[in-house]
């Protein structure tokens, strides 16, 4: 599990546990007949207003903090030193340093990237939607983009660790979806 995945899982499990605890606690409290509240009124109107405002503010702060890290802005200020063309087809990945087409089916080309260099994947599909998912040597999903017919999606990435990386299909594309794969190496 990558650090990022681990963080996500732990965060989720903690939040889930918190929710469960609160619900169990409230459930157990319901037996106690020490109710002194008026019905349905916990907070007054001003308090509620502030609660909502706080919640909205928190959301926007969270959004403005995470959105700039989106893949559409990854390495946008730099010029890539490599382009890797990717064409997906049921049930096959073609990866090539040259554009892929009738003259260059891109089959069987061994892609070797340098550690730390900026690579741009130009990903398209020749039939249905596929998902270009890059997995590192420990089988963690590190980045992805969709392969859509008619369009080219550009994913920029720097590989910091040498090794063999796998490409799996991350959009259901038909009966051999699970065995549609490719790989490349980083030195």
């Amino acid at each position, binding site marked *: 599990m990558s650090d990022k995945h681990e963080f996500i899982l732990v965060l989720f499990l903690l939040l889930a546990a918190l929710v469960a605890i609160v619900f169990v606690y409230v459930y157990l409290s319901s037996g106690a007949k020490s109710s002194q509240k008026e019905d349905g009124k916990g907070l007054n109107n001003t308090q509620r207003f502030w609660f909502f405002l706080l919640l909205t503010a928190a959301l926007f702060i969270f959004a403005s903090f995470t959105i700039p890290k989106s*893949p*559409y*802005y990854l*390495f*946008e*200020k730099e*010029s*890539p*030193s*490599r*382009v890797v*063309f990717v064409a997906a*087809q*049921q*049930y*096959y990945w*073609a990866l090539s340093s*040259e*554009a*892929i*087409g*009738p*003259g*260059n*089916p891109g*089959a069987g080309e061994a892609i070797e990237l340098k550690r730390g260099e900026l690579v*741009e994947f*130009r990903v*398209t599909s*020749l039939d249905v939607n596929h998902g270009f998912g890059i997995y590192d040597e420990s089988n963690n999903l590190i980045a992805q983009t969709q392969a859509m017919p*008619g*369009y*080219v*999606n*550009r*994913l*920029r990435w720097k590989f910091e660790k040498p090794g063999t990386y796998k490409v799996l299909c991350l959009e259901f594309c038909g009966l*051999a979806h699970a*065995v*549609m794969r490719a790989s490349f190496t980083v030195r």
Partner: protein
Amino acid sequence: MILLLWAPKLYALTPVYNLDEETNIYQPVADIRVTTEEGGIYLSEIYSGRPIILTLVYTRCAGVCNPLLMRLKENIELIDPKREFTILVLSFDPLDTLEDMQGMAKRFTLDEDPRWEFAVSREIDKLNRSIGFNPVRAGAKRQFDHEALLIGINRNGLITKKLIGLRNEAALGAMIVEINDVFVPSYPLPDNKRSFSCFNYDPATGKNSPGWGLLVLSLPATLTLLLVLVIGINSNHEHH
């Protein structure tokens, strides 16, 4: 095993777009010396100031050069003036003189426009190799067989976009964005002639503008709104 079974299909694929547009991407353009009205200058001196749209023509061309320039001129006028670029029109014919090129500029009434430069160079072969341009001499009339080519060069002298053929202002707009090092995470394939595309690339703003598809996409909500209004207004409410 299944992979092997399906592999042959790949060779049957139909051409999707002009692959030559994808050659030499992010490779440096040869830093040749060109001669303009103002004298000799290296390409690097030009692009380090403003990125370049480089177009290769020759003055005796009876083919695509004139329409290419014409189209380019028209399209440039539709484009956001805020974006910076120099259009360098360079002759690839060794027989062209600077005067020939200046004549060409006059014919297109571009000689006064500060964004346009017309030039010749003695190092044209070196340039051609670096950008993958291969004009072929054809026939006795000193004509060349060549493609209509635009090369986008960013401030670091890297080729960031190529356009082949007579292209619309949308494609040109994409190039201008690209040479200004603005990363656009996607582009449509040039042969993408599908009905109801969601977005059209708008060169005026450098952004995607709504296409027919967006209208289709907003149709369900619009229809529902109308429906709700119609039912809501036509019902007689029992008032309390």
